[in-house]
């Protein structure tokens, strides 16, 4: 069972690589869990394929979604990936919580190696395949609409980014079914992940999944930055852009500069593992500290990559649901830029304890504390925005409020960690785990969910169910506090992170509490699914085709919901920051254009799916040492790129008459709709037309 099977073809695959075989030979709870997880992946994969076939949806899927270059569809696909991966990572988190709650004074039911795989996959997925695709999807969908453009600057590149991300996510899923994942945590520190200590496939899965995600994000960053710099509609000066676009720009810039260090770190680790180089090994001059520097030169900016878009989301949500202009727009822009720059100056705080001099630690500690200042500025901005506004406690607004309270708390524990002498005490304990979840859950996850609720009606044309939204939101909040506040206590009393079993019985009540919180968080996710289900069933009653359910400010609310594929029948001309909001009050925002013109849009292209599948295959081949597959994949990628460069028939035209037909039917619906006052905006009375009292 441990001999390679057809090594020429299958590389280092052995029958033992399959969790099902392992569970058959050794039916412990631990192995059965692994087999069940693999089974779920296989069964749900097959179920999806069968469903598509039975419903005869293959052609539709291929032409409408997989080969589409429409930034809106690409955005939606990103978010679908993110939600699937969120489900998996949440289940893993619950398994870890359950294990720790059970394993006080005994080994529990999850073996140490398996536990290590769990925190490694949970962390890697949450960062690279939940947070990143989710926010990339939102940026993709919203930025062109907010700046009055018809697409991003490089639509083909955009599709390729999506497909590389999908290939990375697929690799993560494959690791459940074939082989094992890394046990090296989301940061993959060598020398532990070097061939000497970890000869198996685990670290290779990690390396290639993360590398694919990293390359995809670099390309996304380039694409979004160019889109924002070069494709704004007439009159959309930089200082007139909505705040979400501003934070997207800063995130894009961070991606351009911060993803390369990750690519370099994983590539050098791969050279060590595959070709015997000595970058980070113990022997012959390798230097693991250099890895720590490279990784965190990416890692710290990364936390701002995932948090800045959420800041933009909260800015939009708070000002919309307070019916007030954002307080201190300029200071928010400056603060965002300041954070983006400062984020490159603090990476060393991730390893205060690794032996550099006290003065270096002090310098980085002070820099870290300084970054709290612009963040604090923002909190005040949001509070002042609400002040004397017409505040409505809708679901996105509740997320925003929970974020403000909770994030400040996390910031305070961050100041503790930024102080090197204190960091020495709580470094590598659950205190740190509590701190970064305290930042990432309100700072990223709540923001993403607020955005999901806020913009869902724009994307699909009907509102989400408000009641289930609030239930879910409440569970995310209560669950978070229950699950993570105890970890501060545990960490301060010395419980190390990444611990599979616990010897100290005094920890037990806190671990129970954390377990209860984790369960509530799982319920929160379930409520989200229920909400989606309920909303789809009642979509008729919650229709907002007119497109402006919340009396929005930015340009995306000025078009139908869902927007036509060309976004704007005529590209808007704006003369101020809240052009649409103001137009609703002063002129006729729904007046038809004087004339319609032909619009050129990109044709579909198969190049991105081909590159995505080939890169998934190539990296899978690299993981398993199936060299033929790796080489074949690379050749296909190369051929696809060159072939695409020869395609000249890339555009198709939407005739003016068709544009006019689509646009006029929407304008008629607008004229028919009943305007809704703010007080009842979450009721079926909301048809997407705002009642304006000027």
């Amino acid at each position, binding site marked *: 069972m441990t001999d390679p099977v057809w090594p020429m073809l299958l590389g280092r695959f052995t029958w033992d690589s399959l969790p099902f075989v392992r569970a058959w030979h050794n039916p412990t709870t631990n192995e059965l869990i692994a087999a069940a997880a693999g089974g779920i992946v296989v069964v749900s994969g097959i179920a999806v394929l069968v469903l598509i076939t039975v419903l005869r949806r293959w052609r539709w899927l291929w032409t409408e979604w997989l080969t589409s270059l429409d930034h809106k569809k690409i955005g939606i696909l990103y978010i679908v990936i993110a939600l699937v991966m969120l489900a998996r990572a949440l289940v893993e988190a619950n398994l870890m919580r359950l294990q720790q709650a059970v394993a006080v004074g005994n080994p529990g039911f999850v073996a140490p190696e398996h536990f290590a795989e769990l925190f490694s996959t949970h962390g890697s997925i949450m960062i690279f395949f939940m947070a990143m695709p989710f926010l990339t999807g939102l940026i993709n969908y919203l930025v062109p609409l907010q700046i009055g453009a018809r697409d991003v600057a490089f639509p083909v590149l955009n599709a390729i980014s999506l497909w590389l991300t999908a290939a990375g996510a697929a690799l993560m899923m494959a690791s459940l079914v074939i082989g094992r994942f890394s046990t090296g945590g989301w940061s993959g520190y060598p020398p532990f992940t070097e061939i000497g200590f970890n000869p198996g496939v685990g670290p290779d899965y990690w390396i290639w999944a993360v590398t694919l995600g990293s390359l995809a994000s670099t390309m996304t960053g*380039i694409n979004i930055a160019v889109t924002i710099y070069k494709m704004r509609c007439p009159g959309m000066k930089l200082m007139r852009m909505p705040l979400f676009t501003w934070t997207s720009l800063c995130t894009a810039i961070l991606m*351009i500069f911060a993803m390369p260090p990750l690519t370099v770190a994983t590539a050098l680790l791969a*050279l060590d593992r595959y070709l015997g*180089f*000595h*970058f980070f090994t113990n022997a*012959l*001059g390798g230097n693991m500290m250099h890895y720590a520097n490279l990784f965190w*030169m990416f890692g710290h900016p990364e936390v701002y990559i995932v948090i800045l878009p959420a800041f933009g989301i909260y800015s939009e949500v708070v000002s919309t649901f307070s019916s007030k202009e954002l307080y201190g727009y300029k200071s928010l822009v400056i603060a965002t830029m300041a954070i983006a720059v400062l984020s490159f100056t603090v990476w060393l705080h991730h390893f205060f304890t690794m032996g550099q001099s006290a003065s270096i630690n002090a310098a980085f500690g002070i820099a870290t504390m300084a970054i709290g200042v612009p963040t604090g500025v923002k909190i005040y901005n949001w509070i002042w925005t609400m002040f004397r506004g017409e505040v409505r406690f809708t679901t996105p607004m509740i997320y925003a409020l929970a974020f403000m309270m909770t994030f400040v708390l996390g910031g305070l524990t961050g100041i503790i960690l930024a102080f090197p002498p204190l960091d020495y005490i709580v470094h590598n304990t659950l205190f740190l785990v509590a701190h970064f979840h305290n930042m990432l859950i309100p700072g990223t996850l709540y923001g993403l969910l607020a955005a999901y609720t806020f913009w869902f009606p724009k994307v699909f044309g009907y509102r989400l169910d408000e009641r289930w939204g609030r239930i879910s939101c409440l569970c995310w909040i209560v669950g978070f506090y229950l699950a993570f506040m105890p970890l501060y206590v545990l960490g301060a009393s010395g419980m190390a992170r990444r611990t599979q079993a616990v010897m100290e019985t005094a920890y037990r009540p806190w671990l129970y509490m954390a377990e209860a919180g984790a369960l509530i968080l799982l319920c929160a996710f379930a409520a989200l699914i229920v909400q989606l289900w309920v909303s789809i069933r009642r979509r008729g009653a919650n229709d907002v085709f007119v497109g402006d359910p919340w009396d929005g400010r930015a340009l995306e609310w000025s078009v139908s919901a869902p927007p036509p594929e060309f976004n704007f029948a005529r590209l808007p001309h704006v003369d101020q920051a809240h052009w649409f909001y103001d137009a609703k009050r002063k002129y006729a925002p729904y007046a038809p254009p004087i004339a319609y013109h032909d619009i050129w849009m990109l044709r579909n292209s198969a190049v991105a799916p081909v590159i995505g599948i080939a890169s998934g295959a190539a990296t899978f081949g690299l993981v398993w040492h199936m060299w033929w597959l790796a080489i074949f994949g690379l050749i296909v990628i190369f051929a696809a790129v*060159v072939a695409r460069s020869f395609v000249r028939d890339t555009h198709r035209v939407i005739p003016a008459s068709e544009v006019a037909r689509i646009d006029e039917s929407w304008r008629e619906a607008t004229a028919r709709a009943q305007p809704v006052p703010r007080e009842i905006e979450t009721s079926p009375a909301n048809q997407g037309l705002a009642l304006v009292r000027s």
Partner: protein
Amino acid sequence: MSASETKHAGLNLGGTDAKTHAEAEHAIFGFWIFLMSDAVIFALLFATYGVMLPATAGGPTPTSVFKIGPTFAETLLLLTSSLTYGMASVAMKHGSPLGGIHRWLAVTLLLGLIFLAFEWHDFSDMFAQGAYPTRSGFLSAFFGLVPLHGLHVIAGIVWILVMMVQLRVFGLDARVKINLLRLGLFWHFLDIVWIAIFSTVYLPGLLP
């Protein structure tokens, strides 16, 4: 907006081809940003090299394996190829007959190939002296950095070949022009990286 306005850094098509000039704006700007990101990768590999320089683990040292002659020749080859590429760009901008552009591209291609041959020779020389990447941290860093530049040159050469074919097939259409501009930026970028390699890897390594 007038056609002569500068839309992006570097050679603009304003004045000779207003339509492509407008299209080139975000294409070329995007490519500059890509190069910036690629430059970050090289910068980090230079930093890695600096960190690993003392880690020779008792094996070959810079002085014992680097040679000034061939690396200086490589520098001249690559710089000259940049000049010849520049000639191709100017010919493209001013609409000279395709043959002229082809010839300059072919010369650039040839210089690139000779550069690679020299570099290949350098590496096999080093291997022959026992200086291979698995020997020490220093050599790992060297072989992480310099051959990556070489791989970029190979990519550039393949790209030149593709562009020569496209010139035959499509003539000077807008996309060919834009891609020639991008390729030019790429090729000159490789020059700059090489100068950095020559002056921070080879030259100091040869000082006593």
